[in-house]
């Protein structure tokens, strides 16, 4: 599409934005893949429409404030990217546009407060733990709280698991086949520390030494996707320093964090660290990808047959193109019957802080996903992202189906044999 975006004036990411607009041919192939278009049925809430709106804003034809409601409603799920035959890098556009617009937009006091609360707590394990505790304490007042806040509180588990320190080095069991560094993640580590524990156990049983660099921090994805680009850059820089070079891979267990680390080159575009960011991003792999490449030692069958639905986390499937490996691994477990969820490419509505910002759409998507899962008659769910797990569990419960929802890695670790063939 022709445009007159002054890319040079828009900083290092101006070109990325202009390129995305320029490669869009307005064919509409992305419409069926976009959850917000499917729910809301209007062109402004489609990828094609948003590209048009962002283009108009960047060209100074349309006031930013007018376009924002529709841009804000974008889940950032990237469902539109694989659907686009023209190869539009929508993710680069929306992330860069959000950073660009954050400096220009005005937010209400409550909005600013919410934003600060989220940005200053979620990415920090200790702060988030405290906030979550306080939040649960305060939840008896939730009927009095604004809808958005009460929605957030509803997401928190009734009881937080005790805090856990991950070992700095876990040796391989049996002969060492590889050495990796694990990104611990922040919210996941508070809400579900068993996931990283499972990952470490699984890896070490498969002959992998696991390092957890103590200087690491949040991956920065939350900040980047809400337009807080400076925070995101800081987070990226911190991790560039923290992760050692003498490893075979950086392994992530949360889809959102993995896809965030793959974006480091975009966040650090035009800075001294750009090359280093490329290097780190190319080493970063979801734990299932790493394990599938390595070749797992083996899994013991489940005691009884079980139908398990696999849910594609957007930031794995669309963000990192990881669809087959988790399925392959899960299918190695005897007695586990893997079932596909209809409309599997659709977001569950969790999408980072989307639940807090766009509760109506998030709820609708959560309900649809729960209904789709229920239709498969699955007895349990596997997925690769903590946000999806919480969202799906809650909506299944609302639909009256309290199915166990576990991370792919938990399923694998539970059945994993070790190098000596024992469980």
């Amino acid at each position, binding site marked *: *599409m*022709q445009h007159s975006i002054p890319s040079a004036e828009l900083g290092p990411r101006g070109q990325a934005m202009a390129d995305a607009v*320029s*490669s*869009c*041919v*307005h*064919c*509409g*192939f992305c*419409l*069926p893949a976009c959850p917000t278009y499917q729910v809301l*049925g*209007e*062109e*402004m809430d*489609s990828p*094609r*429409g*948003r590209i*048009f*709106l962002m283009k*108009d804003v960047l060209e100074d034809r*349309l006031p930013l404030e*007018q*376009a924002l*409601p*529709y841009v804000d409603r974008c889940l950032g799920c990237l469902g539109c990217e694989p659907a*686009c*035959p*023209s*190869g*539009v890098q929508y993710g680069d556009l929306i992330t860069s546009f959000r950073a660009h617009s954050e400096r220009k937009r005005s937010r209400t006091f409550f909005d600013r407060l919410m934003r600060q609360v989220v940005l200053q707590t979620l990415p920090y394990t200790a702060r988030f733990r405290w906030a979550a505790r306080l939040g649960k304490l305060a939840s008896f007042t939730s009927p009095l709280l604004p809808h958005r806040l009460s929605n957030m509180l509803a997401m928190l588990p009734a009881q937080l698991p005790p805090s856990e320190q991950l070992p700095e080095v876990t040796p391989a069991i049996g002969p060492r086949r590889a050495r990796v560094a694990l990104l611990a993640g922040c919210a996941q580590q508070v809400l579900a520390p068993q996931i990283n524990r499972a990952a470490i156990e699984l890896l070490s049983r498969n002959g992998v030494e696991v390092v957890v660099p103590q200087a690491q921090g949040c991956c920065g994805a939350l900040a980047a996707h809400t337009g807080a680009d400076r925070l995101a850059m800081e987070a990226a820089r911190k991790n560039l320093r923290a992760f050692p070079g003498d490893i075979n891979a950086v392994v992530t267990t949360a889809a959102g964090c993995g896809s965030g680390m793959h974006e480091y080159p975009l966040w650090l575009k035009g800075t001294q660290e750009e090359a280093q960011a490329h290097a780190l991003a190319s080493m970063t792999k979801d734990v299932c990808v790493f394990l599938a490449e390595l070749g797992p030692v083996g899994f013991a069958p489940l005691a009884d047959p079980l139908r398990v639905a696999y849910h594609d986390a957007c930031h794995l499937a669309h963000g990192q193109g990881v669809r087959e490996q988790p399925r392959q691994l899960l299918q190695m477990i005897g007695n586990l019957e893997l079932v596909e969820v209809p409309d599997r490419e659709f977001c569950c509505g969790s999408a980072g802080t989307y639940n807090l910002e766009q509760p109506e759409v998030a709820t609708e998507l959560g309900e649809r996903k729960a209904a789709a899962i229920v239709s498969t008659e699955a007895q349990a769910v596997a997925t690769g992202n903590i946000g999806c797990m919480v969202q799906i569990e809650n909506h299944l419960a609302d639909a009256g189906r309290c199915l166990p929802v576990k991370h792919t890695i938990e399923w694998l670790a539970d059945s994993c044999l070790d190098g000596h063939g024992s469980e």
Partner: protein
Amino acid sequence: MHEVSKTSIVSVCKLGSRTPRPSGLHTFEPPSHFWVDAVEIPAASASTPSDLSRLAPLVDQLRQRFPTDRLLTQPAQLAPYESDGLTAFRVHPGGVVLVQDASEVVTVVRLCHEHGVPFVARGSGTSLSGGSLPVAGGLVIALNRMNRVLDYQPRSQTIVVEPGVVNQQVSRHVAQDGLYYAPDPSSGPVCTIGGNVAFNSGGAHCLKYGMTANHVLGIKAVFPDGELVELGGRSHETAGADLAGMFVGSEGLFGIALEIVLRLLPLPERFHTVLAAYDSLEKAGDAVASVVASGLLPGAMEIMDKLAIEASEQAVHAGYPTGAAAALIVELEGPEEEVAAEIPRLDAIMQASGAYELRVAKSAADRMNIWKGRKGAFSAVGRLSPDYIVQDGVVPRSRLGEALAEVQRLSARYGLRVANVFHAGDGNLHPLILYDGRIEGQLHQAELLAGEILRMCIRLGGSITGEHGVGVEKLEFLPEMYGEAEMELMNRVRQTIDPQELANRGKLLLSASDVGKQSHAPHPLESAGVISRA
């Protein structure tokens, strides 16, 4: 209004938009300023002042009937509706109504008629000829939310759908009963049945089964004056004039389809899909001619040239023979026994066709992959070039090789790359002319080249459009294809049905006031001083 004789309506439909269309014209000169790039048509000047003054009272009326989230009037809400798949044009509409059922459409159309405000129906906005481009100061009636299946009778193999149902959803809906809906435009995952009806859309498999018109049994529509009509019916055979056939391909000029009765077919028992690689385009074209000459009727025969293969491979990784000058897909389909008997015949022809590589799809997934590569090809070309013009024209099948060689010569002469993707089986060419709008003068060259290709189609006895319609893009060319009497007849039917020209004004047929001055003249919007070259 329905005093127009049935026969005249029917003859218009026969003349209208079925493909391929022969033409007796020999002289053909496209207007030089025809393709314009991202031309913006400002509201104030594109419509008459009275259109604009009529809009406000209409919007007031609509406000009483539609909630604000379904009556869009803010600039940011309207901007995304300014274009369809042809981004060369943008028009800012006066408003957009998101309708949810047939009665709402009728209400809106009646109000438009009452207030004299033009309206444009919109499905998914994938038209490549500006069909769903808004009219400045007019209303866009967005039908995408009307996506319900109203009735489905597997035993009589019919389905009744609302116009916003997406093409491929129909096949998905009926697959469990071993049925499918045959017309398969490449845009099938996106485009709506309403849009298909308006454009008489086709696809790769229309070679064997015909275009949309052959699969629509009946249409319930609202005419531009608000009258509800039922054209055709549910029966597979009808008596009297084919009124549904008249509506199909009329590009929205006869009002809005509200319910469409579609004919379904049993899913083919067997497919046999062959992908052949050639070192020249002519050889691929000749292979198609040999298949046709043998009396075989494949479900589809599609050709892609080197550039199209390259683009599609980048997008889909379907395993096409990169480096080949042309790839030909031939697909046999039908009952098991029939296909089994045809396979050796096809194999013999393909072996003798000079292909340097032949690949047969071994599984359903393999076949899907080959088709995915073909169907994503248009948009995939966006990877090769910042801008391109999708041309759509028809040449007689027997002259395909000649036409392709001519396109290659033209491409070399203009120094512009042309990617070719086409329905070889019915001679429907889709040359994609690649250019870079930022390079001074390239757009103009691309336009000239596009014009020459159309001129060639006419010269070879073909048509200026195979399936993308006339829309805004080829408005000026239609009179070049038809004689004065035929144009006059079409205009008469239009005048009878819609004397105020409210439905899809500015598309397919020139306004009555412009008739007579069209040939070789600038685009009417250009004459009005509304558009100019970017």
